[in-house]
């Protein structure tokens, strides 16, 4: 039986890079991934490029700069999950027999300051309803009430991820922080303080996928790449509606994606060795534990407290430092997770290696709603 394998990954660090264009960053990541895969010009039959703010033909500009055009190049926008969407399309095309080798990359150069999203209508902006961190704060407050999560737990997530990120040369923030400083940073939207929120930034990541026969060469296998949107009704869903129902049993988009991915990959949450998840804010990471089934509903606080998700624990989450350390370049972030997990499965994650990792899950979720779950195995 044939499958899809990851035969090369590359990354341009995430951060702020004055004078470096989005195309320049894409070139760095793509070059690195192609070199690792030993794939040159003409060696891939299609390319999918994830970006949310890149503009028209962003992917073409990158491959044009490398002198590698001619094949279909498709730009993919799915908010925070743009890279997951690109990966899903590429993997699906390979599985369907359309291509043997596909390049997938994600690029972003986020505007500085408060980011205007075309998602909101002008009247919503005028009424102050385009307040993105406020939606995160409401979700955090509900999670705190439902799962016994305190502000100290939120600070612990930041401390953990910043500690992990200190060992990641591609992260934006590489210094450790303590809980007192996190709780001492300015309140953005109660209960969320500045340091509990990730920073939108710049970066690029690339992955080369190839058809592989089972048992071939010990490569990292892409066991599932799933994208799902929301089922309507949940008022705090990432679909960011203006109203919802009182039905609290509506599954989250992340749960839909995870359930689908577990089934396709033939694994469950208990089989996972390492996870990269969406920590747009500290509460979002804890909510992800529950939505992905890493712990029971209501169990996020105790799962964190027990140290399971810290490096050295039973299921390290965000060994890369997560978005809280790396920052979030929308189009690149999901593929950045795949780069990290590929290195984890190859035992190449110096200073942050999860020992013996064989099954890994990456999760992104954002406006749309768009939720992506990727499972990699070795």
């Amino acid at each position, binding site marked *: 039986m044939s499958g899809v394998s990851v035969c090369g990954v590359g990354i341009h660090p995430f951060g702020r890079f004055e004078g470096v264009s989005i195309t320049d960053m894409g070139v760095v990541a793509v070059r690195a991934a192609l070199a690792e895969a030993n794939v040159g010009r003409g060696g891939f039959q299609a390319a999918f490029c994830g970006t949310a703010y890149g503009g028209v033909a962003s992917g073409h500009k990158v491959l044009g700069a490398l002198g590698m055009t001619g094949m279909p190049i498709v730009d993919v926008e799915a908010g925070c999950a743009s890279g997951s969407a690109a990966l899903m399309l590429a993997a699906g095309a390979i599985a369907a027999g359309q291509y043997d080798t596909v390049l997938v990359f994600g690029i972003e150069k986020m505007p500085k300051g*408060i*980011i*205007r*999203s075309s998602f*909101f*209508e*002008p*009247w919503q*902006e*005028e*009424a*102050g*309803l*385009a*307040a*993105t*961190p*406020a939606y995160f*704060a*409401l979700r955090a*407050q*509900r999670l705190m*009430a439902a799962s016994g999560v305190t502000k100290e737990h939120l600070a612990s997530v930041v401390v953990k991820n910043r500690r992990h990120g200190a060992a990641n040369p591609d992260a934006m923030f590489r210094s450790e922080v303590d809980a007192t400083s996190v709780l001492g940073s300015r*309140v*953005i*939207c*109660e*209960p969320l303080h500045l340091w509990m929120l990730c920073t939108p930034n710049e970066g690029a990541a690339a992955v080369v996928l190839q058809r592989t026969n089972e048992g071939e060469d010990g490569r990292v296998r892409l066991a599932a790449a799933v994208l799902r949107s929301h089922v*309507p*009704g949940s*008022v*705090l869903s990432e679909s960011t*509606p*203006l*109203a*919802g*129902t*009182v039905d609290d049993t509506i599954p989250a988009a992340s749960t839909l994606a995870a359930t689908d991915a577990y089934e396709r990959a033939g694994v469950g949450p208990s089989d996972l060795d390492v996870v990269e998840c969406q920590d747009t804010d500290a509460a979002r990471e804890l909510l992800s534990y529950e939505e992905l089934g890493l712990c029971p509903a209501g169990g996020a606080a105790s799962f964190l407290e027990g140290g399971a998700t810290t490096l050295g624990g039973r299921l390290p989450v965000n060994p890369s430092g997560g978005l809280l350390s790396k920052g979030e370049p929308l189009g690149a972030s999901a593929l950045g997770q795949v780069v990290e997990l590929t290195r984890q499965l190859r035992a190449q994650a110096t200073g942050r290696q999860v020992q013996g990792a064989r099954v890994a899950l990456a999760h992104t979720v954002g406006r749309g709603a768009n939720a992506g779950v990727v499972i990699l195995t070795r």
Partner: protein
Amino acid sequence: MSGVVPVREGLFTADPPRLVGSLCDACGGHHFPRHETCPYCAADGARPVELSPTGRLWAFTAVTAPPPGYRGEVPFGFGVVELPEGIRIVTRLTESDPSRLTPGQPMRLTVVPLHADDDGNQVVTYAFAPDRGRNDVADPIDEAAR
């Protein structure tokens, strides 16, 4: 001539303050803002209804920095209010200090000013205010003021 204009026509009425939503006869779902096609069951022909002006506070925070495209004052309250119809509404709150709000407290719809537009009109929107009239949840600050 300057006057008072809603931030968007068709969202709410000002006197008395009421949100204009819709009701789907096929599944019984309430929507806000008004939808023609029901997001829950995809049936067409949802009809406009006025939503209840009172409800209970379900979630709340405050916005401390002006969001994109917003020209009004900060901080302002922001939250979700649950109405008796079984619908939860994302809304501004008139109370901008979260420590003065309690989950589940009664709330009442009101209309608040946002900013003046280029023609000198006062632009207004909907918001929920603590409902002092039916305050069955202790509010220590108000107790002290009485």
